[in-house]
């Protein structure tokens, strides 16, 4: 096959899924889906499009391929939110879909982007479409994963295919060891700060290097999750043994791992020495408003929020607990585990023999909420942690747009869970290295 031009990891997965020998940037190709993910806020509209276009008696293209994980508006009195979940239930039952995680039952999981890999639906080399922009999370396991709207999703639901433009790849090479106190969130906030919120518009962001190799799978997800915050179509990391071990513990379904060709042409390359990265925040109201935490020590805060698909994984709570153990929080500290598995981990994971849950309670945090997206995107007015006034929040979530967490008057600083916890203790932006 040496006569073919070399392809990046993203190009190779797309070519394979389209059944073509070669996929070049800007080619428009029909790509086969392995997984279509949807949830409670976009699922009913997707079903609406599917039934309008294919008929109410039409069957989904693949019962195995459709995964429905309600997570956005679960713990609310909002009637339409409940109606929307009923719409999902009725559809799942009529289509006899095996992968549905129903709220209010032991099957309920929580945040779709943490549940999808946990339940074994993310496999290297596959193509994942999701009706949520943070679907790019799943590139952390070597899949091509991208967010789409209801109309595209309705089309995938009926045909198992979608017309896609092949994105040019931007390569991010990170080498060396991170300083103590620096996390994956600091890496991605620095990158977005450098390239801007449209710095990777239409592109694939491919992350590699010894720093990435050294990260846990959950930390890798934190980075790919926020590729969309730079406008990217997908974030991706080549699957290594660590990724394959994670996947094989969760699914027995076969898959074919895909590797990019060494020396494949890319549209741009950015290199970082890990030692130079520091704990940082993204200030209001854009994820690209990069600032080292140390430069914001005078900024007082009203609230800390730890949760979401990018910042509510077990790794994130362990990091926060490392700081909070033996300290008291100075501001309201909201904890929302992403999934039921993470929630269980709060009880079973320990630091010096103490469960995380106990550490958080002794530090004076609010009792953890049940798993869901909660206030990461504001939500209905009765959502846990939703801002109501001019609160200044340090949050481990992924967006700090105006009004994102509820109130247009509130200000959000995006940060790692270490920075969030350190800031909770002092009541102002705090470099976690002050504590470790």
């Amino acid at each position: 096959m040496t006569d073919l031009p070399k392809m990046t990891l993203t190009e190779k997965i797309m070519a394979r899924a389209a059944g073509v020998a070669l996929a070049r940037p800007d080619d428009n190709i029909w790509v086969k889906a392995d997984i279509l993910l949807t949830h409670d806020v976009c699922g009913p509209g997707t079903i609406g499009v599917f039934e309008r276009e294919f008929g109410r008696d039409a069957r989904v293209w693949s019962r195995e391929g459709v995964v429905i994980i309600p997570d956005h508006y679960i713990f609310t009195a909002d009637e339409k939110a409940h109606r929307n979940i009923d719409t999902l239930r009725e559809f799942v039952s009529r289509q006899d879909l095996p992968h549905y995680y129903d709220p209010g039952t032991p099957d309920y999981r929580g945040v779709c982007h943490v549940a999808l890999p946990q339940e074994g639906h993310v496999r290297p080399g596959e193509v994942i479409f999701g009706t949520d922009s943070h679907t790019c999370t799943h590139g952390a396991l070597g899949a091509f994963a991208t967010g789409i709207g209801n109309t595209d999703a309705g089309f995938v639901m009926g045909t198992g295919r979608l017309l896609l433009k092949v994105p040019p790849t931007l390569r991010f090479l990170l080498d060396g060891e991170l300083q103590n106190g620096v996390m994956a969130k600091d890496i991605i906030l620095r990158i977005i700060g450098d390239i801007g919120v449209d710095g990777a518009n239409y592109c694939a962001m491919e992350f590699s290097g010894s720093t990435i190799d050294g990260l846990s799978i959950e930390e890798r997800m934190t980075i790919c999750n926020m590729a969309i915050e730079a406008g990217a179509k997908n974030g991706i990391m080549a699957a290594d043994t660590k990724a394959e071990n994670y996947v094989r513990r969760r699914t027995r379904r076969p898959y074919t791992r895909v590797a990019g060709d060494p020396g494949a042409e890319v549209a741009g390359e950015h290199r970082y020495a890990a030692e130079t990265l520091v704990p940082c925040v993204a200030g209001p109201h854009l994820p690209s408003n990069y600032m080292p935490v140390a430069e914001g020590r005078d900024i007082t805060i009203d609230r800390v929020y730890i949760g979401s698909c990018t910042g509510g994984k077990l790794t994130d709570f362990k990091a926060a607990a490392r700081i909070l153990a033996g300290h008291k929080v100075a501001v309201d500290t909201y904890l929302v585990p992403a999934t039921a598995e993470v929630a269980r981990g709060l009880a079973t994971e320990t630091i010096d023999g103490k469960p995380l849950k106990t550490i958080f309670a002794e530090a004076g945090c609010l009792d953890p909420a049940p798993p869901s997206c909660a206030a990461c995107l504001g939500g209905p007015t009765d959502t846990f942690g939703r801002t109501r006034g001019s609160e200044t929040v340090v949050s481990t979530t992924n967006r700090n747009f105006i009004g994102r967490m509820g109130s247009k008057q509130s200000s959000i600083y995006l940060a790692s869970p270490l920075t969030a916890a350190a800031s909770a203790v002092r009541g102002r932006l705090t470099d976690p290295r002050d504590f470790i």
Partner: protein
Amino acid sequence: MNERIVESRVYVLEDNIDTDQIIPACYLNLVPTIEAEYAKLGSYALCGLPETYPPFIAENQTKTEYGIIVAGRNFGCGSSREHAPIALGAAGVLAVVAESFARIFFRNVIATGELFPIMSEKRLCDLLTTGETVRLDLERYELTSLGDDTVFSLKNLGAAAPVIAAGGLFAYARQTGMIPAHK
């Protein structure tokens, strides 16, 4: 969207208008394929903007008097919520003319056929003001400010043109034989 030449008042926005500003998340409980909720989404279009902007939809109205939005870079960044282009379309927006668009929003506009996403050669948000009347000509890819007849050139739609011309993703897929035609 069959009109290729339209005249309308413009509403001018800056860079990075995100989907939370276009339609705040508390309204995502509305399902766009339900007719009454489609209209309701329209009535909330752009209600997430900072208070420094004039109201996009007048009090007690469900539709906007501004048929064309002019914006800076990266219009529609953020979420994949199709509620965003739908809210604009349902409010009566015919086109957004921006310096650039965020990818998913652009794609959703095309897939739904709700409105025209047009890119300008120049940064028109610095040159036009909210309330002035313009003519958008999609035959010649021009936008004319009717106050002083200044003509600005627009970029053509490129690879998206055939999908838009067909009327959205499903119409395009039927036209090209990707899925069977409606019975």
